[in-house]
């Protein structure tokens, strides 16, 4: 499925490895349960971890400096736990790698995702990136701080959402 990053559709070079499958070379995404196994695979590619909505971000704390990607999931767009997971990765654990979301979410949530620190979105086939870009540009001010540390607008907590 298309991967949206910085407003562009980009090539997804990561391989999702399910439970029980052998670890291939290259950039791989593993479930949390295979974290130590993945960390033991030194030098054969980058490592990412898939975190389920009910798994704790803090379980990645020790490993995080060696991870390049954390993938979060929306079982349905109304289930907002990934917002808190993403924000925790950035704010508490100072994770600077990619934060990816998969599953069911809407362009109307794009700005919220970005402001919580999500940097990659797996979006449905045939998606038009222009729709997401429009959603991103529609509202130009925010009323609270976020992990993006946007430019303060000058009054109270207001922030500019445009560069």
């Amino acid at each position, binding site marked *: 499925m298309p991967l949206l990053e910085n407003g562009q559709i980009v090539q997804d070079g990561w391989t999702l490895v399910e439970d029980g499958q052998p670890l291939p070379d290259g950039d791989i995404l593993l479930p949390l349960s295979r974290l130590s196994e993945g960390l033991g695979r030194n030098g054969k590619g980058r490592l990412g971890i898939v975190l389920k909505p009910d798994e704790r971000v803090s379980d990645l704390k020790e490993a995080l400096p060696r991870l390049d990607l954390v993938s979060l999931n929306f079982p349905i*767009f*109304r*289930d*907002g*736990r990934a*917002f*808190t*997971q993403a*924000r*925790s990765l950035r*704010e*508490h654990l100072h994770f600077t790698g990619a934060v990816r979301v998969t599953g069911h979410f*809407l362009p*109307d*949530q794009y*700005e*919220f*995702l970005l*402001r*919580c620190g999500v940097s990659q979105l797996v979006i449905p086939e045939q998606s038009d990136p222009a729709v997401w870009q429009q959603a991103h540009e*529609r*509202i*130009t*001010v*925010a*009323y*609270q*701080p*976020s992990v993006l*540390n946007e430019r303060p*607008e*000058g*009054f*109270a*907590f*207001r922030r500019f959402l445009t560069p």
Partner: protein
Amino acid sequence: MPHSPQPPADVGRYAYDAVDRTFLKQRVEQFRDQVQRRISGALSEDEFKPLRLMNGLYLQLHAYMLRVAIPYGIVSANQMRTLAHIARRYDRDYGHFTTRQNIQFNWIRLEDAPDILNILADAEMHAIQTSGNCIRNVTSDQFAGAARDEVLDPRVHAEILRQWSTLHPEFTFLPRKFKIAISGSVQDRVAARFHDIGLLARKGENGRAVFEVYVGGGLGRTPVIGVKLRDDLPEEDLIAYLEAVLRVYNAYGRRDNIYKARIKILVQALGLGAFRDEVNAEFMAMDRSRYRLQPEVVAAIRARFATPVFEDASAGTAQLAAQTKADPAFATWVGTNTHPHQQDGYCSVTISCKPAGGIPGDVTSAQMDLLADLADQYSFGELRITHLQNVVLGHVRKDNLFALWQVLSANGLGTANIGMITDIIACPGLDYCALANARSIPIAQKLSQRFSNAALQQEIGALRLNISGCINACGHHHAGHIGILGVDKRGEEAFQITLGGNSGEDASIGQIIGSAMSEDETVDAIARIVDTYLVQRKPGERFIETCRRLGAAPFKDAAYATA
């Protein structure tokens, strides 16, 4: 975007600037696009629903309902005229004040909703987050900035919370709705202990606010009295601490069952100690400097509120005494419908939206226009909607009360029943709501009529009567001294009675006294309960006190006694 020159500020409410107005217009266009995408099929109804809910649009039994936010209950005279216009042009010429100090319009067409939101935006109003699983409109004391027993005007902090919670990136898809109330008075008039978060503000060092924080209260299917989470939250940590609470809730609140999804269930499941530990861990881990509420920010928000310029009206107190002596009906109204003011010669007036036999909280567009005019004439152009579904003029000179009362009385707004048995809270019920089991409005009207005699109401004294049409408890029946709960009894509408609820500092949850009865039987049963109180009470004892002293048994016997 440069800051525009300060617009003339309204008394009691935050004045928007160009940035705030631009934001609202962008939000309206975003919603207009969402409506188009729904109509074109690009959005499914399932996907559209939370988006429209967060713009206040709710699908009822017969039509869409639009719930317009009235932040901390304050509305200017001109804003009230805008609401009257919407009632006339887009609804059936009336609106309904809600228990969250908002106003609902019950007969809205989906296609009109973006235009209505645009009209609201022109008046610095919106419907953002008046529904949906997000942080809802923050409620506050209807006598804020006026009450003699106030220690701190809570509206500045309510506005700070309104702004912070508006389109919050992390907390807009919570497990369930989230309601915050804030009071700055010794007497809790906001039902702080029946909110997801209740904040009681007091003055700390250097005049900065300190907050008592209650969590996990609420009514609904599982009524719970909130518990104290913090006693001494400094103002500068207000936002950071609420972020911490919301993060714990967003991460761990249940999502498998909407009836178990409120924060009260999480607090109960973890236990207060463990919940507090989670909040504190989050609070310690977060970048608190990012969320610190600096004195300059509080001051900047405060500067957007105009304050009334009071005159020397102290002579009015003697004049009022003479007028009340001369006119007993006026004296009764002054006794029930006014509240002590900080300023000599002034008082706050509660205008009853509960006339005898009326629908609680409903007002016509003509009444809205009149209320706006009266606010301009007598109360610095400012009105407040109360969570008890009435309207307050905050700052009225005592020597103007008689003239005000005469105009109100001539327009169906002069009922002297605030805090009395006919000051009924009722949800919209089965007349409008798809969730309801029974109609709340007809039984409210019958009870209002039954007890309409002013002398009888005076004799009964303070009594809170709340009616919900189903167990979702939008009419707060558990918090009523007497509560009525609509149920479905083998396909028929029926009603259970609860006794002993209260929403103040000594909050309690009303308990069901027995099996459900028909509408007319319930009205008669309540009359017998009230008669029992009148016979059994000790001198000076209020209904709730007699109830607590005697327990439910004598009232239950009376309720089910057949003639």
